Each structure stands twice: as C-alpha cells, then as structure tokens.
C-alpha cells in the first residue's frame, strides 16, 4: 500500500527536472497521506491515486512551461516540408539506387537480379527517408527552439506573400517536384561522365565483343572548366528547388531564373568553344574509319558544329528568358 504511493510519486517526479524532484516528492507525499484515513485500505489508496490522475499528466502540470519538439505553430510547415522532401528523396533514391543495383548485380540469374534490385532499392529508399525524417525534424526542432513556439515572431505586414494574380503565376507542385528530380538526375549523369571521362559510345564486333571507342572529349580540357559546369548544374537544381518552395512566379524567382539560365548558357558556350575540347585521338581514329576525310576536315566539321550549337543555346536561352519575363509581366498586370 505504502509501496503503491511511492511508486505513484516516483512515476511523477522521474519526469520532472532533477532539482525540483525532492521538494515535489515531499509535498505530494504529505498531500496524499492527508487525503487518506489513518489506516487506509488498498481500495482507498487506489481511489486517491486515481483522483490525482495519470502520473504523466500530473507531472506535466507541475512543469512550468509546455514543451514541444515541434509546436503547433510550426507543425503545418513541418509536415509540408517533410512531404515534399520525402517525395523528392524517395524518387531520386529509387531511380539512382535502382540503376546502381541493376548495373552491378551480385546475382547471376534474372530472378536473383530482380529480387536484389527490388529489395536493395526498397531498403535504400527506406534508409534515405529515415535520414530525411531525422534531418527535417532536427531543423524544425532548432527553429522551434529559437522562435520559442513562434508566438513572439516579429512580423512585418508588408512582407506577407502577395495574392497570386492569375492562375498562370502558380507553379504546380507536382511539376516542380518532377523538375527537381529530372534536373538532379541529368546533372548527376553529366557530372559523372565528365568527371570519370568514360566513353559510353562503342560498338559490338562480329564476336559479340564490345569495343569502347576512344573518348570524344579531351579529359584534361574538360577538367579545366569542370568547376564551372558543376556550379551551373547545382544552380539549376537550386533554381528548381526555389520554384518548388515558392509555389508561384515572383520577381525574385524570375531574377533567379534569368541568372541561372544565363549562367548555364555561358557555361555551355565556354565548354563548347574551349580550344582542344575534342580529343585529337578520337579525330584520328574517326579519320581512319572514314575514307576521304582528313584530320583537319573532321576537326573543322566539329568546330562548325559546336559553333552552331553555341548559337542554338544562345538563341534558346534568349527566347526562354524573353518569353518567361513577358509571361510574368503580362500576368502581373492582370
């Protein structure tokens, strides 16, 4: 019986800050005994303890301030970010892991490979999602801590988001997520092939043997502007993330869009006009296959091709920036 009371009190105070435990324990003990007759039955003790409520709830009432990991003020944003992050990471991991597992399988049978790919991909996605969950939760925990529940956030009425003026100004979440994923995958593939300098082009000869062709690009020249290309790709991914988070076209999104597209065009044009970009060995090899074409004819041919590509990229970028800006201001006026 006495044991029951002690157990109840212990279950309350173990949830409280250490420096308050002893005091609360003494007071609670005293109060509980006051509530009991001199020789209480077990039934009586049970009733009194039950009237005090669940130890967890009583402890919560003793606590001076409410504690949240992520409070109600931030919870909506937390869920939204979590959902988007889950969708993006699940798809990216699914595709990259699936391809990775399929390229380098340990099994030899088709069924085995299939199993391997499906199961490993599943667990890779699961792992990635757990990591995302942890990261997003920690970020919001920190926000919660620093905003103290968000009740005292200074807020400027002029910084409230503007109402979307037209339907066209909205950026659909599904298409924005798709853009993030596609940009990411294309970017990773480009970086991978440029960095490793691997040639994927080749041909099967009569014996079914795969012959890899000599690298088309000059790896040293590629590496000399590799940083610029990586930056441009990251900027493109960031742009899509910005669009996803913004959910609509704004002046800022438009400016970022213009900047990133210009950066991409500049990077591509520098890449294409870099002297010695095409591997001379490749040209030599090509000349040996094609009759009547000398090294310089092929080299010049590629040069002209690259310059035409530069013009196309420049034109496409100008058209893209022009039409996006025009659309933005046309809808803004409505």
């Amino acid at each position: 019986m006495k044991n029951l009371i002690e157990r109840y009190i212990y279950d309350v105070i173990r949830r409280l800050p250490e420096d308050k435990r002893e005091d609360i324990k003494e007071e609670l003990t005293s109060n509980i005994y006051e509530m009991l007759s001199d020789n209480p039955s077990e039934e009586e003790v049970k009733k009194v303890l039950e009237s005090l409520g669940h130890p967890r709830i009583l402890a919560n009432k003793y606590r001076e301030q409410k504690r949240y990991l992520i409070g109600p003020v931030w919870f909506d944003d937390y869920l939204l970010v979590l959902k988007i992050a889950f969708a993006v990471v699940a798809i990216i991991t699914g595709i990259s892991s699936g391809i990775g597992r399929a390229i380098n399988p340990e099994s030899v049978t088709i069924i085995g490979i299939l199993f391997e790919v499906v199961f490993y991909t599943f667990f890779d996605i699961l792992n990635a999602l757990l990591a995302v969950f942890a990261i997003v939760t920690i970020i919001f925990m920190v926000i919660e801590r620093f905003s103290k529940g968000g009740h005292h956030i200074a807020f400027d009425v002029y910084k409230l988001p503007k109402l979307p003026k037209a339907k066209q100004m909205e950026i659909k979440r599904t298409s924005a997520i798709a853009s993030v994923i596609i940009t990411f995958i294309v970017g990773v593939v480009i970086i991978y092939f440029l960095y490793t300098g691997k040639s994927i082009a080749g041909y099967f000869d009569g014996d079914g043997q795969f012959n890899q062709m000599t690298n088309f690009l000059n790896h040293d020249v590629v590496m000399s502007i590799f940083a610029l290309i990586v930056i441009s790709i990251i900027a493109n991914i960031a742009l899509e993330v910005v669009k996803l988070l913004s959910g609509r076209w704004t002046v800022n999104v438009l400016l970022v869009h213009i900047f990133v597209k210009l950066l991409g065009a500049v990077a591509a044009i520098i890449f294409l006009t870099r002297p010695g970009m095409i591997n001379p060995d490749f040209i030599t090899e090509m000349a040996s296959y094609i009759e009547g074409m000398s090294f310089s004819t092929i080299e010049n041919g590629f040069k002209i091709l690259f310059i035409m590509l530069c013009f196309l990229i420049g034109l496409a970028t100008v058209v893209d920036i022009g039409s996006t800006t025009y659309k933005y201001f046309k809808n803004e006026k409505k």
Partner: protein
Amino acid sequence: MDNNIKQIYQTELKRGTLILLVLSQLNEKEYGYSLLQKLVDKHVEIEAGTLYPLMRRLETQGVLTSEWVTTTSRPRKYYILSEFGRELYEYLKEEFNKMTNEVKQLVRGN
C-alpha cells in the same frame, strides 16, 4: 455531442475564475488538501491534480509563500498569500466585479 461542446465551454468559462477563487481562500494558511476540501465544500469544481501544481506555480511567481510545519503528526506544507498575492487578489477582485457588471448588462440586453 452537443453536451460535449456545452461541457467544453462551461469549463472554459470557469477556468478564468479559478485563480481568483483559490486566492480568496488563502488569507489564512492552508496546505494542499485542506485548501482542496475548503474549495470543494464551497462547490468549486477542482481536482487535486490541478490544485497542487497550481499552488506551487503561484509560489514560484511570488503570489504565495510557503513553510513546512513539522509539529503535526505529519509534515505539512502551508501556503498563504504574500504581500504581492494580496495585492494581486484585490486587483483581480476589482477586475472581476467590473467584468461581471459589464457582462451582466450585455447578457441582460438580449
């Protein structure tokens, strides 16, 4: 379901006056259970699990002062209004009277 909503608003209505009622009974020193009984005798609906933590909180805020009395068969922690507590009580009482008058007028108006 209707009764449930009634219950919620009734509790909410009473909650604001709880502090006032608790303070009103602490001109003389009381320990947790004696105060609980005093309030229950006067038909104040309050649970032990709410009152005891509330008394502690009022003490940390300087509204109540406390002392342990060990001369009785069991040690008891007695609480009483502090100087500030009395001031607070008078202030809240005044506010309550003002408010009830205003509320009464409004409610009667309908």
